């Protein structure tokens, strides 16, 4: 770490939020160093979410969360073509399944308009039926939110990091911050030795309060909120177009059914508080409930196989809103409690952090962006296997070519572990879960990643 042990700014945590901040600061002319404890980026909350790009129609009015989401949404839309990031323009339907929920739709509509999401409209039972004929006839009506979309949850942060790297940032993986002290500059102790920095940004997700305690008694406490999902096989994608959202409760957005950018359908998440900050276990009883609920709402799912199950941990605090503050005297910025909207808000959070930086620490330059497009994995856009001379397909369920796997093991930020390889290529993520290809994939990865 010879040339990296002192730096202007360290970002702790390579989740989607840390990646977006890293990008923004690198583009602003700083040479940020991103420290990530995992063997690859996206080792925490960001590896498992619903992958929805939210409009903020139901976010708390006037909150920082709402403004970051809407800013993040706008920026995603403006840069996605240059970074080759997909967008499945599905729209969403908030569906009422009983009279009580039906009664809440007016409030949802009013809040959406308050939040300046003006294209949100009521949709009656018949129109709902026309739009989603395969949804259970028990659906009583709903609210249509045209701007809610589906994205690729992993390619986006990967693209942000790549752009940050292209602008001179540095990423250290397998680098866990263990402790630190401040004497005008920050001395951070990591498993790779000491890193010193003029400024530290805490974007440590589910470890946010523990990292915060290096700086000050953390004014918030993180209680991870687990969300489990069931993913159905590709034939299910023909069953619906829109994201089907439930009428939300105080605690969660509830169980969603939607397609994925990769052509599957997911049902989830649950919302279960837990102390464990690392292990996101799936649980058969909960998975069965999700399946049952999914089939109740979309009966055609009963005939489709389950491809995958997974769980993610939301970095929730006792507060509803994001915990983002700067402490200029301590040269520290806290970015914590990005609970359930961080994928959408990441670019907006990064803008906000850039604003905090500008206000207290210095000016960010305005350099011309270097674009670093990432490979497309979305079924709606051309995939590699469809091109002439694409070579051999290795993963047969997700149609991943040998070239794609080799490329993911190479370049500025090669996959650091098997999860990273899966997220970059989708190899082994299909219905057979590696029955046909895992030995081949691991042979190709030999010497580059170890299980």
């Amino acid at each position, binding site marked *: 770490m010879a040339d990296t042990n002192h730096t202007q700014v360290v970002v702790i945590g390579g989740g989607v939020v840390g990646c977006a901040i890293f990008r923004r600061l690198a583009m602003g002319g700083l040479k940020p160093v991103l420290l990530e404890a995992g063997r690859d980026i996206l080792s925490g909350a960001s590896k498992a979410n619903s992958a929805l790009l939210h409009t903020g129609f139901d976010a708390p009015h006037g909150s920082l969360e709402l403004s970051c989401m809407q800013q993040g949404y706008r920026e995603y839309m403006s840069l996605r073509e240059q970074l080759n990031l997909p967008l499945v323009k599905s729209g969403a339907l908030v569906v009422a399944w009983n009279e009580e929920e039906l009664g809440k739709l007016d409030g949802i509509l009013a809040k959406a308009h308050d939040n300046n999401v003006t294209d949100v409209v009521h949709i009656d039972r018949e129109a709902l039926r026309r739009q989603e004929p395969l949804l259970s006839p028990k659906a009583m009506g709903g609210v249509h939110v045209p701007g809610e979309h589906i994205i690729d949850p992993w390619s986006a942060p990967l693209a942000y990091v790549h752009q940050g790297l292209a602008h001179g940032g540095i990423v250290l993986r397998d680098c866990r911050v263990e402790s630190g002290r401040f004497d005008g500059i920050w001395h951070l102790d990591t498993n790779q030795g000491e890193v010193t920095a003029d400024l530290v940004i805490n974007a440590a997700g589910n470890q946010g309060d523990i990292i915060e305690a290096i700086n000050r008694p953390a004014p918030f406490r993180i209680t991870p909120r687990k969300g489990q999902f069931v*993913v159905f*096989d590709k034939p299910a994608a*023909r069953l619906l177009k829109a994201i089907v959202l439930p009428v939300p409760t105080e605690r969660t957005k509830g169980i969603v059914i939607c397609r994925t950018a990769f052509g599957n359908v997911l049902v989830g998440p649950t919302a279960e508080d837990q102390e464990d900050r690392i292990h996101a*276990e799936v649980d058969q009883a909960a998975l069965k409930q999700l399946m049952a609920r999914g089939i109740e709402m979309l009966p055609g799912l009963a005939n489709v196989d*389950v491809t995958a199950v997974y769980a993610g941990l939301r970095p929730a605090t006792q507060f509803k809103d994001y915990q983002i503050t700067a402490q200029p005297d301590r040269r520290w910025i806290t970015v914590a409690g990005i609970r359930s909207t961080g994928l959408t808000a990441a670019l907006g959070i990064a803008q906000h952090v850039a604003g905090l930086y500008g206000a207290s620490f210095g000016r960010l330059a305005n350099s011309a962006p270097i674009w670093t497009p990432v490979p497309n994995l979305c079924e709606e856009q051309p995939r590699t296997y469809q091109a*002439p001379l*694409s070579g*051999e*397909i290795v993963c047969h369920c997700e149609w991943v070519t040998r070239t794609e796997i080799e490329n993911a093991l190479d370049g500025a930020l090669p996959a650091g572990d098997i999860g990273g390889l899966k997220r970059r290529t989708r190899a082994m993520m299909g219905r057979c879960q590696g029955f046909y290809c895992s030995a081949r994939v*691991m042979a190709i990865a030999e010497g580059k990643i170890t299980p």
Partner: protein
Amino acid sequence: MKTHDVIILGAGPAGLSAAAELKRLGVQDITVIDRETEGGGIPRHCGHTGYGLLQFGKLMTGPDFAKRLVDRVSDLDLRLGHTVLKLEPNGRLQLAGPNGLETLQAQKVLLAMGARETPRSARLVSGTRPWGVMTTGALQQFAYLQGKAPFQRPVIIGSELVAFSSLLTLGHVGVKAVAMIEERSRISAWRPGDWVARIGFGVPVMTDCSDLRILGQDRVEGVSFQRRGVTRTLECDGIVFTGQFRPESALLTQSHLELDPGTRGPVIDQLYRCTDASYFASGNLLRGIETAGQCYREGISAAHAIHAALQDKLAAAATPIRIEAGGALSYVYPQRLTGRGPYDPLLFKARARVATRGTLRVLADGREIWSRPINVLPERRIAWRVPAIDLTGIHHLTVDLQPRK
């Protein structure tokens, strides 16, 4: 576009035996497609013996058997490394090859895409999702094709025959399993199997295990389960989910062909013909696992039907008679009879959901026309021939298994 006589999709035992038989019958223009870069299907990586006795008169390893099957048809148009993406009406196939997308057309298509084991995810198993959880098929490719042991102390889940294949496979790379775990109260393979596991492989077999939970973060660290009211934890560094085969039928689900929710394979008639008369099917695609020998025979039978169809000798598919499974049967196939009859002895194959001692019956429009006493275990094939019967005027057959009272 050129129309081939026959395209065979899948170069496993079923597809390759059909190819050889069609060649023998004088069909000229046969194309065999497989997405792997080597032909042979599952036996390609099933490195232990257990193949070929009835087909080639000696006990062979999977790879030797696979090579034998491939060599017999090496003069045919064998397109390896080609993935079929879509089945369209009237024998039109969309595929992706090393040169990109193509379309092929045939008078008759034989579907022989085989079957695979159900992975941990589709079984909805609880716990974390670390590396080191796989199926026997994957394990075999590590062990026999790469000479690698993906772990040193795995636990085997399930006790169908394939679980024993996984013990043999581990033995090949010098690995001994910690235990074999079965949910049922007896093992699914033949009875002395647990004795074989214990004495032959030194692996304890535990039945009655439920509520499986996988432990570990990056790599498997253990597995816990309930057994007779007690939670037990076994330390291990790998987990092999064996069996619970299901047809590799994703292509079918997205096609116009009808699927049977019981077998999860295509609906076929007594001539292996699908609901689009240009498609036939055979081998494990029909229902999950059977021996390679069974699949081989089904390939030959389908080849005869295809040969007859090419010469317009097959009875036109008149209004079919539906066949449904009932009682303790989870499925029966063929799922329909076409043509006019009277039918040759009809071959039915089925499986029972649970171990059953009782009567197997065939009912025609509700009236019993055939029956026989039977004693079956789950996960085992039941096959029988019903002598030629006149079904004139019949619309519906039920095949059921009623437990003895």
